[in-house]
């Protein structure tokens, strides 16, 4: 193993250099330090090294971001403390947090089209296997699939609450409007059911999971729209 040879400083100039170095680096010392370093390689290395450390430190990159749990904890705490006085509709918060629904309408439409396309594919697959149960009971949609993140689970629960709310008030809806909402909800419930079926067979299929969450998000949009309409 190599060892660092260390000696006491022999040159008085070096001793003075060391004594003044800290102050020099702070910018408030005599130029003796620089002058000595010019004649003394050993001291000049020290000076260069320390200046380099200072320069690199100024320029250190930021670390990666903290994990999403930090914001979700902050959010939950602030909400519990009542700091959010101006709130977005609660269902929209979950959707935003789940980052599932693109904000702009054309993108949302595209996502929905993609969803439908995938569901068609699954449908074919499922029909070939003949294992699908076509009966969709209201409780089928109230299952929270396993393996979801906290935010996703919240979205699913939120949609369930919204649906219960909708059911409680659907009689007050204008019949023609109700028909439109029902059609949309039925189609989405079917999509959700098919995704759930697929997930039972392939629990780790992330694509199916993503489409499932998109279907929930779409459902939240429809239910929210129905509730807004109903409250007019």
């Amino acid at each position, binding site marked *: 193993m190599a060892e660092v*040879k260390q000696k006491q400083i022999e040159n008085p100039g070096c001793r003075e250099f060391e004594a003044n170095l*800290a102050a020099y680096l702070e910018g408030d010392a005599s130029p003796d330090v620089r002058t000595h370093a010019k004649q003394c390689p*050993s001291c000049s290395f020290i000076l260069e*090294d320390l200046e380099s450390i200072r320069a690199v430190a100024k320029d250190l*990159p930021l*670390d990666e971001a903290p994990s999403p749990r*930090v914001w979700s904890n*902050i959010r939950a705490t602030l909400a519990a403390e009542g700091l959010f006085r101006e709130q977005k509709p609660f269902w929209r918060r979950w959707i935003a947090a789940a980052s599932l629904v693109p904000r702009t309408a054309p993108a949302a439409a595209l996502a929905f089209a993609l969803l439908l396309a995938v569901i068609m594919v699954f449908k074919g697959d499922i029909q070939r296997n003949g294992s699908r149960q076509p009966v969709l009971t209201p409780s089928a949609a109230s299952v929270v699939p396993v393996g979801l993140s906290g935010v996703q689970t919240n979205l699913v629960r939120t949609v369930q609450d919204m649906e219960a709310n909708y059911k409680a008030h659907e009689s007050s809806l204008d019949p023609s409007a109700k028909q439109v909402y029902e059609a949309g909800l039925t189609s989405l419930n079917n999509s959700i059911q098919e995704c759930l079926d697929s997930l039972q067979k392939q629990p780790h299929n992330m694509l199916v999971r993503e489409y499932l969450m998109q279907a929930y998000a779409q459902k939240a949009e429809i239910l929210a729209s129905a509730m807004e309409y109903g409250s007019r």
Partner: protein
Amino acid sequence: MSLQKPAASAAATETQLITRAQRGDEEAFAALFEAHKRRVYSLCLRMLGNPTEAEDLTQEAFLQLFRKIATFRGESAFSTWLHRLAVNVVLMHLRKKGLNQISLDETENSQGEPIKRDYGDDDRRLVGSIDRIGLNRAISELPPGYRTVFILHDVEGYEHNEIAEIMNCSIGNSKSQLHKARLKLREWFQQHQIQFGRSSPARVAREPKEGE
């Protein structure tokens, strides 16, 4: 959306966000968190060296900030305010663990200690090998008191009078602690060069990596 001077419009946006947060707009809180989370987290992580602790304290700093946001009147820049708050949160935490105190004894005793030198080896300059990755590691291995002063001064850009106030020590103390921290960092590079670099002069000449 108009395209104006980015700095001015960014500041205007931040002022708007603060006003909205003061009204209790959740999205504004979220946007302020997004804008500053990296810097606060980096500070915490560097000072603590532990990602879980760093996240906990990032959370604590933002919570304290958001609870007080109604009192923010713009006397200082928002980021300065937040940053100072984060530093205090971290120091409080270190203090609880008994870690951040600057030791006065140590400061006085080691005042005259000579700097480690390697005589007779002309290639022992480190300049080329002092890079960001190494420095990050070296900082994480500094004793806590040195680490705090070094991070506050050389990384975060605080002045010694501010550090003295934050750390409750004298300005001279802050200065000598900083100098010793830098020397310790240099020793770290010396040791790692001995371990890995002595037989490969290319390493000595290597430039720090850019753009990371």
